[in-house]
């Protein structure tokens, strides 16, 4: 498979009143063409900052990309100026935000908000752009599109607005679509509809998608691969099957255990991970998750764990995979679902980079 996006050792920080926030601390991953990568993790773990860094939408100042590379089709975006980014944004990479109620301009007609992108990136006439806008609205399932293009956002419901946002994001046929919790602000039935829409669109358009969510049910539904973030780092990354059926990082265990089980909806098994995420102005020494980790080793408090590879596609950043670490079984809720997957190595291999 061909790599569309490669993020290498990305570090992003913010200078704030309370100190320097290390929001993203050395994140590496890649996205293949036509693939959907889900990013999951607690609030504040740096999911949005990572993806906004890809689009160079981090407000600078106070933010800065301190280190790392973001290669899109082999071309590094980090050194690009905002002028140079204009050609890439909307055209090669586009984004759907969390809250459809606020992400559309309230005083601009919906049609104009779509044609704006088309006109910017394609050399077409206004009429052509208008026609395309109506087609897009139809594509995302908005009835009476011809009328709707002349309306304002407040005349649309939340779900409908998110469809409009998707239409905007698709307007210039992007290679990569980033969806930052596109369903979180919607109610459950609408969530399902939007997810279905995104899945069918992915089939039709064929762009790669980075999908940020808190909802593991959604992940299982849409993703090909999953990255788990904690405190500004990717702690585990692998295919959906690997993450769901053979998770290796204790934080992922916690996430899986806290999920109402896919098959058995059993109240008794719902566990939240106790404790709070670390303060990123002053990240702890060693493994950031150790203080909340019931299986934490002595070394977790002393030294940051390296990445271990457990299969050609599966990586986890925990000392538990070290040959000298004691054998520890994941909690019951995870063990129950565990499957032996083909391709898993005999022994985890320590690696420098993904």
């Amino acid at each position, binding site marked *: 498979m061909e790599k569309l996006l490669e993020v290498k050792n990305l570090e992003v920080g913010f200078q704030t009143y309370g100190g320097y926030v290390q929001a993203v601390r050395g994140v590496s991953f890649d996205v293949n063409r036509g693939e959907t990568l889900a990013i999951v993790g607690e609030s504040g773990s740096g999911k949005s900052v990572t993806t906004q860094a890809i*689009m160079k*939408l981090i407000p600078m100042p106070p933010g800065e990309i301190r280190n790392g590379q973001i290669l899109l089709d082999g071309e590094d975006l980090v050194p690009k100026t*905002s*002028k140079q*980014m*204009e*050609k*890439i*944004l*909307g*055209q090669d990479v*586009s*984004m759907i*935000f969390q*809250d459809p109620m*606020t*992400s*559309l*301009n*309230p*005083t*601009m007609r919906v049609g104009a908000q779509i044609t*704006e*992108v088309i006109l*910017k*990136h394609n050399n077409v006439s206004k009429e052509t752009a208008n026609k395309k806008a109506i087609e897009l609205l139809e594509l995302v399932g908005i009835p009476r599109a011809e009328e709707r293009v002349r309306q*304002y956002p*407040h005349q649309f419901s939340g779900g409908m607005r998110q469809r409009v*946002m998707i239409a*905007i994001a698709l307007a210039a046929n992007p290679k990569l679509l980033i969806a930052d919790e596109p369903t979180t602000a919607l109610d459950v039935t609408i969530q399902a509809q939007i997810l279905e829409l995104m899945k069918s669109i992915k089939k039709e358009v064929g762009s790669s998608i980075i999908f940020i969510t808190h909802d593991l049910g959604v992940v299982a539904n849409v993703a090909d691969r999953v990255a788990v973030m904690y405190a500004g780092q990717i702690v585990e990354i692998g295919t959906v099957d690997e993450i769901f059926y053979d998770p290796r990082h204790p934080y992922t265990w916690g996430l899986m255990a806290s999920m109402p089980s896919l098959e058995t909806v059993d109240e008794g098994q719902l566990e939240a991970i106790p404790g709070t995420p670390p303060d990123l102005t002053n990240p702890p020494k060693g493994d950031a998750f150790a203080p909340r980790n019931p299986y934490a080793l002595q070394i977790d408090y002393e030294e940051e764990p390296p990445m271990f590879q457990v299969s050609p596609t599966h990586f986890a950043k925990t000392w538990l995979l070290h040959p000298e670490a004691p054998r520890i079984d994941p909690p019951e809720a995870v063990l129950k679902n565990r499957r032996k997957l083909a391709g898993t190595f005999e022994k985890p291999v320590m690696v420098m980079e993904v």
Partner: protein
Amino acid sequence: MIKYFGKRFFYMFLSLLVIITATFFLMRLAPGNPFTSEKQLPPEIEANLNAHYGLDQPWYVQYFDYLKRIATWDFGPSFKYKGQTVNDIISEGFPVSLALGIEAIFIALALGVLLGVLAALYHNKWQDYSSMIFAVVGISVPSFIMAALLQYIFAIKLQVLPVARWDSFAHTILPALALATTPLAFIARLTRSSMLEVLSNDYIKTAKAKGLSRGVITVKHAVRNAMMPVVSYLGPLSAGIITGSFVIEKIFGIPGLGSHFVTSIQNRDYTVIMGVTVFYSILLLLSIFIVDIIYGLIDPRIKLRAHKKGA
């Protein structure tokens, strides 16, 4: 929408009624006013006043007659100068004041918005700090002091512009600038904070994610939305321009309604004071009402907010 404007209109009407009533009865309390019985007036003026206010009638008859006349756009005679009516004074002075006022409003809006937008775009940079220091100084220098300062520098010392009078465009520059200073500073601050608020909105991020250029985002998405509070400031702005014009016209010797009004205050020409006050109030309340309508027309969300704003 209709209901909203109806409500606004009703409140405007009530405010106006309070003003007219208050002025009418307050004038009767004033020492040496024409409405007391032991007055010493030239017979012609006395006849005029009698015809207009019916001074021999009981007060409530006089009051309702006055309301009726206002409704027919008749503000009554002068109490000091025979043969002159308030309507004459208004039609003579108001066009001059209007020209001055419009020039000042134009300056205040154009420069104020420009400064505010710049300050917001360069938030926490020197452009921001210098605009905001300029604005806070502008707010702290009252228009009449600004007028004296401009006169002293440009007319007396540098002699590049005329000191006073009202003959050519050059004569309008200093008074319009003096009149515009304070509202300009207010608009700059208002625009800045409103721009900052708008720029922090998600839809600006959406616009950036579309790959639009900074210029397009600023003009099409940010400034347009940031103008809403500035539009609603147009009401108070016209009030400031009107009251400011009293002193500015006097300082620059401009024959507008403002300086006529000041003269009538100094002469204690009660009926003129009363008439011009009512005229100004109608003008102001009307302009506030019109601003409301404009606001409703340019903001497509107004229907949603109608009940909230009307409260």
